[in-house]
């Protein structure tokens, strides 16, 4: 049976990016690969939404770009979490947990 892809719910992209970067600096491609890997191929990030999201997060000051070299020795733009990014991640994680718990509760009782 092929892996079933799930569409990302609104607003979760930022959370996924921040969470992934919390593990260490990563470039855009790396982020999408990592998310796909960890979610066992369930979640896939469209490039068309990944890069605008990265630039938006950069503007908000939650992540910071730095040019570095990739595993295969190519010049690549790495992003890392800033201090306020860490704080934001906690806020969003909390919110997400509350949301899923609440949704689960509703589904459980219905």
């Amino acid at each position, binding site marked *: 049976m092929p892996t079933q892809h799930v569409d990302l719910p609104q607003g979760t992209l930022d959370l996924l990016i921040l969470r992934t970067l919390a593990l260490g600096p990563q470039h855009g*491609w790396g982020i999408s690969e990592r998310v796909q890997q960890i979610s066992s191929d369930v979640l896939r990030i469209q490039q*068309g939404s990944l890069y605008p*999201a990265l630039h938006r997060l950069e*503007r908000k*000051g939650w992540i910071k770009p730095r040019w570095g070299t990739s595993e295969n020795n190519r010049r690549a733009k790495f992003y890392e979490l800033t201090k306020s990014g860490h704080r934001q991640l906690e806020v969003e994680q909390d919110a997400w947990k509350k949301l899923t718990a609440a949704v689960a509760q509703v589904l459980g009782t219905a």
Partner: protein
Amino acid sequence: MLSDLFFRIRSLFRRNAVETELDDELRFHFEQQLAKYINSGLTPREALRRARIDFGGLDQVKEECREARGVYMMETLFQDIRYGLRMLRKSPAFTAVALLTLALGIGANTAIFSVVYGVLLRPLPYHDPAGLIVLHETTPKVGIVSVSYPNFLDWRAQSHMFSKLAAVETVEFNLAGVDPAGADQPENISGAVVSSDFLSMLGVRPMLGRNFDASQDQAGTAPVVLLSYPLWQSHFGGALNVLGRTVALNGRGFTIIGVLPPDFRWIEKTDVLEPIGLRANAPDFHERGDRGDVVVLGRLAPGVRFAQARAEMEGIAARLEKAYPFSNDQFGVALQPIRDVFVSDLRPAILVLSGAAIFVLLIACANVANLFLMRGAGRTKEIALRIAVGASRSRIIHQILVESFVLAFLGGLLSLALAFAGIRGMIRLIPTDMLAGANMSLNGAVLLFTCGVVVLCTFVFGLAPASQSTRPDVQSELKESGRAMSAGVGQGRLRDILAIAEVSLALILLVGAGLMMKSLYRLLSVDPGFRPDRVLTMNMNLRTAQYAKDPAILNFWQRVLDQVHQLPGVEAAALGTVVPLTGNHSRNDITLEGMALPKPGSFPHPDVHLVSPGYAGTLGIPLQRGREFTDADTENAPPVAMINTALARQFFARQDPVGKRFMFGHPSTERAPKWITIVGVAGDTKLYGLANPARLEVYLPFRQDASSEMTLIVKSGIEPAALASSVRYAIASIDKDQPVFGIATMRQLVNDSVSTRRITLILLGVFGALALLLGAIGIYGVLAYSVAQRTHEIGIRMALGARREDVVRMVLAQGAKIAGAGVLIGIVASFGLTRLMTKLLFSVSPADPATFSAVAIVLGLVALLASYIPARRTLRVAPMIALRHE
């Protein structure tokens, strides 16, 4: 917020770098993805295809990234500014009219605000001015009066609400001998004698030298002086070595111990400060009933409120009144925050003028909004088209607002030139003594205000066209402007409303100006009680030691009279203490022989003039009964006096006052009364302003009560100002060190006494004229545009047989409707608003029907004229051409 702005700006300026980085970043991703597919065993072709599908539209991704970075908003702002400038260049006539209108409106406000700021808002150059209180005494007979020095000492001893109280006496000095060569003319300068606490209470420190100390409050202190910065500059060239030098004041050497800072101000012009100990032996510092020129400055103790201090002072004054009934009967105390003392005269005028300036601005904005609407009408098709192909409404409103801002900003720049000229004009109009050292200029605060006005204007005249342009639904707009039938109904109504608003605002301003004009006319037609024509006045004050004794004083005055009488061109000359309209006269209680004695505070309290023979004749004060003084009324002759009509009427209702006697002061068992016989009755004069009622007056012959301070009045057969130098020369030949000051014609003095009203009238008149002009342009614009839009319709009407008069009447009727509605609204609003200027009016009701109707008629005529020009244009419409129009 701020960091976000920096981010956007950086994105904007590093645009190329950011673009390259974006390219690199996306290419890296693409290549990684491609490599991944190839590694997983796909053919290169298939891998490339899959990678491309994954990626989606590259340009779209880039676009979204740019948007996410916020590059757009800044970039579109610059685009819109460029676009706005291009639009303004494209229609130079529109731009010129709009810019000029705005510059006038904004300039008027900037100029008036510079006065508001300088006089009302600028913080006084004192430490914590909110805690500074100025104290006077009050009496029901006169109102606010100076403080008696012994009372001040008691206040200071008994008050706890003030941490400090200082006495300040205004004095004037003869200044001579600054120039060692003696080449300088003697001068009269003003100064203050102050308690040693005075400067430290204000938080003012001398910029050079030192302040007075407490020992200098005591009698017998050495003569020392602090110079004001302007005097230091003008007379000592700003030399640093002035400290220790002496300067001759009233012929006595004073050691300079310091220089005041440049921003020092006091209520009166102050050239020098002296310590109060120097005056401690003066009689008015010991006689409680002798009130000189002292005001008291108080600093509230920490935590004390104004009302508490007032309550305490009123208690102290009541106790003093009981303790000293003869000097203090009915004397109370008045407290004013120091700010009020500085502005009271000009305040009502300034507030009215600020309101007027705002009206001018509103009219200007309405005019520009109308211009925008008319031009916008030509653009509705363009805008509708842009909305149709997907431009967002907010984007279009943004662009129109930016265009308005560009216009407002340029108008604001232009207005600064106008404001600069306006401020200089106003400074020339306002007598310097009314400004109490306030200065008006285009300073930072004023520029900030102008910026605020520019932004406000942007929205006031930009929002209407902006919302209007995007409101109508695209379909009908595209259809309607396809054919040039008539203007869109909504737009036409908005334009009419704006024109009506302009007319009503203009009416309010014109009514205000009309009321002021009538007041001033009425005021200047008041009989001052004297004839001001061809009379020259000048002051002299004999302060040097050689005039210590009465005979020396009398001798000097007699020689002045003799010399001046002989000058060619002199018809009459006389001396008097303080001519009408120029200042405070000395007053004294009198007791009339045989009258029932009133209680101590209720004795008649006339103004007392000391005058030479011929005074009444020279000033043209009519003699009602008896005689004027003659050369025979000398110090050795029996004491005589003249009284004025008001005194005669009040106390000698049915009797002839001539031959009756009175004495100064109150009857006392200790002294024999010194009776003075009344020999004549003179007409009443307006001593304290044309608007004020006559007061009781007594005239004494100058030889019977020598005064060291006199005003010389000269009636001439020629232009009086031309006599000034020969009179000065004659006086210098008697005493070359005697300053002559305050040289003015009586006519000037009359004009100066109404200067607040005159300034208000001139400025209101200018604003009213501007408003009228702008309002007329407004009506003209609306009608001209509507005629142009209706050419087609007019053509049809005429083709169907309408006569030319009918068409002209139709346009005139539209103008009349606008003007009529504007006048009606304006009249209703004026009834409410002119009441605010009651304080500035004189014997004119704020709802004066004559003024209202005159203004309404003038406005109506101007509106008619403004409508007639576009109406005539219809006459030139040839039906055939009109029908083919477009």
